[in-house]
């Protein structure tokens, strides 16, 4: 059984859970994801791995309530157990296989949006612990929704916070912050990694290309099995069809057909057993979801 040993509310719609899953904890790497199924009649929900502790045998997931299945996950309490947790799935981040001297020359900038900030954390931690220079940009709609500020601050050289409404940090989008850092402040980066909503990753990739900065994105596509069996996750990368679950989830941001990916991501929106169509509901929820 996959028991929840710790649950915290990070903001009105985002929860962090530490779950017992010793085999996954022992084999996980930054960049990988897992699949949670709460009970027999639940969906298989892909979630990124936000942390893993091989000694304790636990993995950490961060989930945002955006539909019936994620609400179901978030309703679980400490001491309860998920029916299934499968992983680690997908390929580790490319830097995991880099030689030491290749790594040493890198200056990373991470661009994290919303709940996508959580999977950035293990990557930043991994690089920082190997002495690689890492800056992190975290963005959210408003101050209240920012997550992982303190955790991230401990593992990066510079942390830049931005909010769409200017309630905290830089007033503007993460892409504006990135341009500001490179063009105004003269920061030099060798690689960028963007994780967040698909539309954010699209614009982060466009910005990075303009700045001549290579960028990796992590695609949160639809999936059923997560092992290459169903093809629901297929994306076009560099004109070729790739399966995000086994060949990804990380791809070269320049090469991804984001418009297709966003369209495919919405395929089941009308079928999902929540009646409302999916819109980013953070704003709607922040006032009402308080317990």
């Amino acid at each position, binding site marked *: 059984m996959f028991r929840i040993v710790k649950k915290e509310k990070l903001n009105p719609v985002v929860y962090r859970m530490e779950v017992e899953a010793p*085999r996954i904890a022992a084999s996980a790497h930054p960049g990988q994801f897992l699949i949670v199924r709460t009970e027999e009649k639940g969906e298989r929900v892909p979630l990124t791995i936000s942390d893993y502790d091989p000694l304790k045998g636990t993995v950490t997931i961060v989930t945002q309530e955006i539909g019936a299945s994620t609400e179901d996950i978030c309703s679980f309490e400490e001491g309860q157990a998920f029916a*299934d947790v499968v992983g680690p799935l997908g390929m580790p981040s490319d830097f995991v296989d880099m030689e030491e001297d290749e790594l040493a020359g890198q200056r990373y900038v991470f661009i994290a949006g919303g709940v996508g900030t959580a999977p950035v954390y293990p990557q930043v931690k991994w690089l920082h612990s190997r002495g690689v220079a890492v800056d992190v940009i975290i963005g959210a709609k408003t101050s209240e929704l920012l997550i992982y500020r303190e955790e991230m601050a401990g593992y990066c050289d510079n942390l830049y916070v931005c909010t769409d409404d200017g309630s905290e940090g830089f007033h503007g989008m993460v892409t504006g912050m990135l341009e500001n850092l490179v063009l105004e402040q003269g920061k030099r980066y060798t690689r960028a990694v963007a994780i967040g909503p698909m539309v954010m990753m699209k614009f982060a990739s466009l910005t990075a290309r303009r700045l001549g900065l290579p960028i990796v994105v992590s695609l949160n596509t639809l999936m*059923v099995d997560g*092992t290459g069996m169903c093809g629901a996750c297929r994306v076009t990368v560099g004109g070729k069809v790739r399966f995000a679950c086994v060949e990804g989830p990380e791809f070269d941001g320049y090469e991804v057909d984001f418009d297709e990916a966003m369209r495919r991501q919405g395929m089941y929106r009308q079928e999902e057993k929540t009646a409302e169509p999916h819109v980013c509901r953070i704003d709607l929820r922040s006032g009402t979801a308080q317990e």
Partner: protein
Amino acid sequence: MAERIPRVPAREQDPKVRATNFDEVCLGYDVKDAMREASRCLHCRNPRCVASCPVNIKIPQFIACVASGDFARAAAVIAEDSSLPAVCGRVCPQETQCEGSCILGVKGEPVAIGQLERFVADWNRENMAVRPSPSPSNGYRVAVIGSGPAGLACASDLAKMGYDVTVFEALHKPGGVLEYGIPEFRLPKERVVKPEIDDVRSLGVKIVTDVVAGRTVTVDSLLDREGFSAVFIGSGAGLPRFMGIPGENLNGVFSANEFLTRNNLMKAYRDDYMTPVIKGHRVVVVGGGNVAMDAARTALRLGSETTIVYRRTENELPARREEVHHAKDEGVGFMMLTNPVEILGDERGWVRSIRCIRMELGEPDASGRRSPVPVPGSEFEIETDEVIMALGTSPNPLIAGTTAGLETTRRGCIAADEDGATSRPGVFAGGDAVTGAATVILAMGAGRRAAASIDRYIRGKEEK
């Protein structure tokens, strides 16, 4: 000469009724039917049916038991060679195996061996007659990757020999293709698959779900860290193929694997499950195999008008005859000598139609089948809002890609000999992972042969 009894037909749900439900199509034999059918067996001195069975079930012996009404003994005879008789009685292509070589078939109808096997297995389960029990342990541990037909057959035989067997399954339920691939109306899950897998567990086999070999564990971690003496890879052929034509990534285009997994494993057809599934108004299924029939018949049951598009003629359909007839009776349309060239979408990126070209049969290809060639200028469009690609599957590269020294073939299959031995000592493989997509029973046969060679391998090491 005694008067020939005609083959006893198995009862079926009426096509009009069953096209609207997911209950099993075939209702099988009752006791009277079974005993009557069993009395048709000639008990050949040299039974060709046994040789044609990939797991060599002692067919005349079990049929003799059925004829005399000793169903428990019949079950015991079958259990010596097969761990999944209720499954095989339902999904084996008997017409090309045991029944295909039955001497009665030369002039008339062969003995309904499949129906009799099914009857015995169902009777045994309902009456709890012959129950499997664990054998004394020999102290050696063997890991089996994949809980489909190959893995279960291998695990059962090893457990009977006294091995401590752990089966690792990537999905949340054991059974492999029996669970995610074959629909409920052909193979009931709770009533048939689950009890047969429980029987494998009763032999002492442990099944661990949610473990993805190549990710959660590797072949090497099982051998080096988890203390297994040998590993059997029965991971199947799960990777779906697409055509590579324009428009295949439009919304509303699915692999048969996705469509079937959502419905079979994830029970999307039931309202009490969270799984979403698209129910098109007009569904086009591309392909002509059993999987295409399964997908089409599932779509039909979800309320879609369904057409199968296949590039050769009906004579070349790789699906079992019975499945084709069932699909037709239920109202699935068949459009033969037709090949898609492009899928067209609407302004929102959803499928609107599929453009196809008419085909005609040309010269025989390497497989001996006449290969279809396009008729120039014959392109036309079929209006559709859901396209399901059932073009076959290939082995998943996850394990081969994470196991050093494990050789694969050009087609991405794991290279293994007749006995399942791979290029790595102590690592064995069988079933679709080795052959590419084939049948349940061939995978079981491969699993059994691998179990025997794993036994020889471990004994050989012990002697050194």
